[in-house]
């Protein structure tokens, strides 16, 4: 395991490369998903308010 993490002495180059990739690829998916969820909630809230104002 330690040998694997050491990457033959190149751990300082290999792991930051993989770490940055995981971070950037993750953000590219998570950020739009979160924006979509926020938008849906916002629009639902507006719809509910609109609905109630019509009842009154």
């Amino acid at each position, binding site marked *: 395991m330690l040998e*694997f993490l050491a*990457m*033959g*002495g*190149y751990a300082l*180059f*290999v792991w*930051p*490369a*993989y770490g*940055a*990739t995981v971070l*950037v*690829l993750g*953000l*590219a*998916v998570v950020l*739009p*998903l979160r*924006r*979509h969820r926020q*938008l*849906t909630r916002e*629009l*639902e809230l*507006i*719809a*509910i308010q609109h*609905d109630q104002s019509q009842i009154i």
Partner: protein
Amino acid sequence: MTPPQIDQPTGNRPRSIWARRFHQLGSPPFFYTLIEKLLPWVGALCALCFAAGLYGGLILAPTDYQQGESYRIIYIHVPAAWMSMFVYLILAISGGIGLIWRMKLAQAVARASAPIGAAYTFLALLTGSLWGKPMWGTWWIWDARLTSELVLLFLYLGYMALQSAIDDRRTAARAGAVLALVGVVNLPIIHFSVEWWSTLHQGPTVTKFDKPSIATSMLIPLLLMAIAFQLHYLVALFARVRAEILDSERRSAWVTKMVAPS
């Protein structure tokens, strides 16, 4: 008295089933629901390919005869570099389709692709730098390959800046498409830079007409990672386009109906 005949776009001429499909694809509610359905499946497949590719690349693949373990950066560097060019091609093609046929879906794909492509380009440059330091002896060199890839990053950033600077989406889409089409000339320059000029970067390993000069046990994880990156692009694109549609169509009847309290 009969009302005057209005010339409908789908009017007088009979359309083939494919023309109708193409037209349907241009309707936002249709591709919104299509994306909703596809997204979890593509996401799961993408995760599977990443798991297989990473296991193969980091654990199963043997050490390189010359570069030792440092070569394992290839499993992210090369797919990221391929995708940086592929996404740009999609950006230019969808931009062109949006420019000529004014198709909303194409414009949305172009707009959503730019930040994803920029992310791949950034990763290709960053991981290349982390690979170059131990192997070549330098983080950066102004050779033709590295410089043209940096130009690609600036093209993406320029496109994104243009999109955020122009408020009207349709004008932004047209201006962006022209920029994207002009930048297409950079793609062959990036690919052939290592053959046309003397560079520090080595020549192509996989994307050449001969047999790839990489051992099969090393090539399979690389191809798996390339597929994983392709699927990641689809997932990120779908997620972006979906949010984009919901935002731009928020006042339309179908969105109102969809979010209405039941």
